């Protein structure tokens, strides 16, 4: 019980707003530092597809962690689909191992996380129009084109998609801390533009 209490306190210290976001996708790149022969890899590896007319890279997938990699002839690789930074690194290492086993001298140079996408729910509806009026310089809200408001946070170079239901998508982060900072930045703004519901009307119409 005490442990849970302290864990709860830890959570609150990290997420003072009380809302926790989940990371949905991590995109990373790594340089395997050797020229690859895409045709042989495509023929030898079981879970790969290579269509040079459509795209000049091999698309390879592994089951655990469930990720996809794009491998280019120069030796660069993009790894997508992981749910955390450690998983992304692990998956990238697995892909590099596959390439190694196929006979290429693959190394693991310059692993870098390029993008992290997370989603969360603040659990109250938001007045998007009010938000776009007051933060006009950062917001772009076109209900005809896209139902969500696109908030470009200049100080952290992140983009947040804010929906009227209260669901938020944060993207453009290079680490989990970036996402934290951006979310803690936007949370007070969202509470300011909370939609206050009036429930009594629904009761009347049910008669």
């Amino acid at each position: 019980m005490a442990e849970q209490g302290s864990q709860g306190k830890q959570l609150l210290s990290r997420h003072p707003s009380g809302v926790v976001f989940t990371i949905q996708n991590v995109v990373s790149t790594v340089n395997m530092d050797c020229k690859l022969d895409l045709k042989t890899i495509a023929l030898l590896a079981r879970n790969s597809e290579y269509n040079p007319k459509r795209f000049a890279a091999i698309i390879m997938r592994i089951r655990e962690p469930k990720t996809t990699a794009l491998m280019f002839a120069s030796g660069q690789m993009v790894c997508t689909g992981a749910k955390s930074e450690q998983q992304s690194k692990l998956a990238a290492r697995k892909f590099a191992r596959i390439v190694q086993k196929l006979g290429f001298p693959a190394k693991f140079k310059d692993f870098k996380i390029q993008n992290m996408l997370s989603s969360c729910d603040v659990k109250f509806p938001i007045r998007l129009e009010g938000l776009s009026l007051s933060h006009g310089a950062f917001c772009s809200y076109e209900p005809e084109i896209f139902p969500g408001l696109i908030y470009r946070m200049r100080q952290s170079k992140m983009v947040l998609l804010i929906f009227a239901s209260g669901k938020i998508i944060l993207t453009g982060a290079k680490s989990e801390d970036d996402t934290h900072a951006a979310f803690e930045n936007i949370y007070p703004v969202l509470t300011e533009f909370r939609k206050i519901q009036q429930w009594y009307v629904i009761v009347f119409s049910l008669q």
Partner: protein
Amino acid sequence: MADAFCPDCKRSTEVVFDHSAGDTVCSECGLVLEAHSIDVTSEWRTFANESADNDPVRVGGPTNPLLTDGGLSTVISKPNGAQADFLSSSLGRWQSRGANPDRNLILAFKTIATMADRLGLVATIKDRANEIYKKIEDLKSIRGRNQDAILAACLYIACRQEDRPRTVKEICSVANGATKKEIGRAKEFIVKQLEVEMGQSMEMGTIHAGDFLRRFCSHLGMTNQAVKAAQEAVQKSEEIDIRRSPISIAAAIIYMITQLSDDKKPLKDISLATGVAEGTIRNSYKDLYPYAPRIIPTSFAKEEDLKNLCSP
């Protein structure tokens, strides 16, 4: 009425501009300072003798400040008789060969004018769209982009800035070949470029259902009473948490109001007039139905009539 220096009075005096004769006259001594001034205002007709051939009073088309030289339209024509006189025919050829620096601009303006005429837009919106296009054109970053989409987006932004927004679907219908997505992307691009260029002056508020209501109602031929009721309903619906595009809300409210009145419009007509799909109108109607007694004004329909409203 202006102040200019009169040589006879040897001081600055009040000067009157006589439009009928085109004279600038000193009001103190009556000296004519300038005669035959060229009228640069918009078209006016002379009924002297309706010879359509050549009206020597006119000296050219209206000036357009957006074009490089103000739109001077003097050309060298071929003389009658086709003498093949070397000088006159060569001059004609040389002029047409020389690249008119504004050719793209003029073509773009013409396209914008065609689109605006199809939609029945006033000249202010057309001129604003031309200005926006000129500003974008100067930046040169639209070289590779879809020209139709850019022009359509200029028109869309002009309508929004003049507080007479048109839905993207309406603009789509007159823009040849541009899809809703392309126009949306072009619009974002233009807004970003102009913000960088001119600072924060792109004040375009969000669209509301009420902006389009009047137009949709008149397309459908609704009575004045119904139109007023619909406008009130839209005002009240803004407070309710309905997560739908404002156009769909407008269409659903029109549907509700017409169902309550005597002249019921079928879903297909409303769908055609608003550009909203029938399924979407039905879904928006489903969302609005619980709030019907609250948004429909009591002056238009009583509680019992609301019971007649078919449940979605």
